[in-house]
């Protein structure tokens, strides 16, 4: 098992290299660079612009820039942000809290509801309960996030039950510990419901489909025929077999933990990673963009690895293959 993990990690190195090289090409292929805003400023002399190009390393050719970046990367230095004048990681770090708060709440929301509703719908196949669940799921899948977010904001503004965006109240500095926690949770409801609603549909449909597949298998029929209690058949055998593809899905979901959700974050003024990335892209803050992209790829690789390990945990067949 340990050997397997090590092998997977080593294999991920060329993947990351490829991702970083491609990303670097694409970012650099965009016209202009970070200094364009200075070039349009009448008070900047050309000499100063040239010195800044040198300072930021923007006058080197593409391969030299990539090489330098890679060399520093290997030593654990992910580069400096042009906009913030500080190492990119310390900027990303300031957004990790808000991003995780939102993504974890969303994950819990969509997966807990998605799985239970999925099972519920499968057990009542083609009956009204199933139909209603399906309609809700397709609504969630088909309403764009930004639109749902706007609807929610409208609702919040009309009723005053929820805050209009943001992550904390304006007077939050005076709050005690529990009040602060409550304030955060109160603010996360809107974006979490928006994101959770669309995520829920996928989980629910997947769960329902897998579960129905298993329920029609011979071993289920056999178990029932020999008089095994329905509970044991459903939750002890069918569910265990149906869960495998969902674990793979869960691995992918883990990879988006740090990715952020640009549209939803923007509508809700949520200070997450998605907005940071977009801002950095707009300003052509090269190394900050690179760091966020690479972090996402890294999370994808780790998420997949975790999913595979979980899979080995629940499925003896997979475990066997490892040995």
């Amino acid at each position: 098992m340990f050997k397997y993990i090590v092998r997977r990690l080593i294999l991920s190195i060329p993947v990351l290299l490829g991702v970083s090289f491609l990303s670097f090409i694409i970012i650099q292929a965009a016209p202009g660079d970070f200094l364009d805003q200075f070039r349009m400023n009448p008070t900047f002399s050309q000499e100063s612009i040239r010195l800044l190009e040198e300072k930021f390393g923007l006058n080197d050719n593409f391969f030299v820039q990539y090489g330098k970046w890679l060399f520093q990367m290997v030593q654990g230095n992910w580069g400096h942000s042009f906009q913030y004048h500080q190492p990119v990681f310390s900027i990303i770090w300031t957004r990790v809290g808000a991003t995780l708060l939102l993504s974890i709440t969303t994950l819990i929301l969509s997966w807990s509801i998605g799985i239970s509703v999925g099972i519920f719908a499968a057990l009542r196949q083609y009956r009204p309960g199933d139909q209603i669940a399906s309609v809700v799921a397709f609504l969630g899948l088909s309403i764009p996030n930004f639109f749902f977010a706007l609807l929610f904001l409208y609702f919040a503004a009309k009723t005053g039950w929820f805050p209009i965006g943001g992550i904390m109240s304006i007077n939050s500095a005076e709050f005690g510990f529990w009040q602060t926690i409550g304030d955060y949770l109160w603010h996360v409801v809107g974006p979490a419901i928006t994101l959770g609603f669309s995520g829920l549909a996928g989980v629910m449909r997947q769960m329902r489909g897998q579960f129905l597949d298993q329920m029609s298998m011979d071993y289920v029929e056999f178990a029932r025929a020999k008089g095994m209690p329905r509970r044991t058949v459903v939750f002890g055998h069918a569910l265990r077999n149906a869960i495998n593809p969902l674990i793979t899905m869960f691995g992918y979901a883990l990879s988006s933990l740090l990715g952020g959700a640009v549209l939803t974050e923007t509508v809700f003024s949520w200070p997450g990673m998605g907005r940071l990335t977009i801002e950095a892209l707009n300003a052509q803050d090269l190394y900050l963009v690179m760091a966020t992209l690479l972090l996402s790829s890294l999370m994808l690789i780790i998420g997949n690895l975790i999913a595979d390990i979980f899979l080995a945990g629940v499925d003896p067949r997979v475990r066997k293959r490892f040995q």
Partner: protein
Amino acid sequence: MRKSLLFVLVLLLSFGFMAFADVGTEGVEGEADYIIEDVQGIPGGTYYVGALGGPKTFNPCEAQETSSTDIIDRMFATLVDYGKDSEFRGGDIAKSWEVTEDNTGWYFHIRKGLKWSDGQPLTAEDVVWSFNEVYKVEGLITGNTIDVIRDGDGNLPEVKLIDEDTVLIKYPQPFAPGLRTLGAVTILPKHVMQEAVENKTISEIWTVSDVDDLVASGPYIVTEHIPEVRVVMEKNPYYHRFDTAGNRLPYFDKLVWVICQDQNTMRLKFEAGETDFLAVPADDYPAIKGQEQEKGWVVGPYGPTTSTLFLALNFNTTNQTMNEWFRNVHFRRALSYAMDRDAMIDVIYNGLAQPQWGPISPASPFYDPLVEDYSYPFSLEDARASLEKGGFSWNDDGKLVDKYGNIVKFDLTTNAGNQVREKACNLIVDTFGQLGIEAVFNPIEFNTLVQKLMNTGDWETMIMGLTGGVDPHSGSNVSKIDGGLHFWNYSPAVADFVDPEFYEITYSEFRIDEIFKAQTKEMDPDKRFALFSEYQVLSAQNLPLIYTVQQLRLYAYPQNLKNIQIGGFSSWVWNLWGLYKD
């Protein structure tokens, strides 16, 4: 772990220093040259302001974008103090100044007994150090103070300590804009920044994560920063202004910047009473004005802003026929006549703007109303007459043709996503069409546009804007023939894409260049004004850039906010120390 230990150590050390300083300098307090302002108010409370986007840095040497400088400028005093319309109000850090005998520099007398917010003395030494060790060093910082303080020929000033309280700043020749530019330079705390300057790491200090390291000399200092949520500034306990009743200013204990993602959020927060000031966008003005009575606000317009919006024609495209049109002054005048500025004012700015005829904003003390005599009010007849004068005529389809029979057609561009500029382009395309001129509107992304402007010259006409400073000297780079932003007719010496064979300049361009060289040495304010007056008239007559309209500054604040006086250049910030709520 090690980092946090270091942090604790630094914190302990700085506390140690603070305690030490407090004991050491107590006796000097009485002799200090404080500024007494003729204001009355009630100390205490918090002033909430909306900010569009969060700060990128708290380092005055690095900050470029207004989301950072709006905050940083509240933290630092400068040598000279400016009033609401950017006029000289008197000294800030400097108590007074006098011009040197040979008219090439100034003696600044620094106030005695000033202190930084950590209690350390703020002296002439800090002033000299800021100039000599930071701003005058090439390539040390990202900011461009080094360019701003250069004289007309690119010389840097000599900065010397004369005695304990006097600093001499001197150029090799007279430099008229000098007092204004030098007076606005941020003075840095030597005792805090020296080490970073020596290690050349000054760019990396005072980032948005280093709130605890900041030291200020202005009315407020940042004490808390929650990214994308808010920046909290607290009163500087050693600020050097008092009111007549003997209260140390500013009145507000706290200044809180509420970070908003966009104009809509900013407006919502103001309407909800969460912020105390709103720079009203023209689109929202009627709605905000409508609530004035009910909500108890003061809403109104104040003169034009300093931003400009102009149509530029590229004199050096690869198409020589086209260049001939664009270089034809009658053609440019016709285009100016064909701009329906009233429609622009209504459509783009909801009626809250005014036409602009010359390169200097009426908000500037250098504005000469004489340019209004050289205006081009919307008239297609006048435009046609001017085109005929320039040798153009119309073919059977009603299309404009030049004297060789070429149909007049060109691309019009601007940076995509800028609604004001896009709307202006659409209006222009429409009225130009009525003249038989086909302008093809094709907005492109900002960075691409800059590349075309600076590196390839691959553009035909565009709607652009540049922000002007108080002194027209700040636009030298645009107006001088060999300027780095003389983009409509770059000199081949500056831009390699301009073919020297076809390059030409007109007398007016030459004369404007002369004016910009002469004005830096003209120390007599009246003569200098006359030079800029000539520049404005020449520009209005010859239209190197065709100016369009200028938005008015629109503001809204609650009635209980007192002492606020809106200004043309400074909005509400110039007397921040005097604002209070009752």
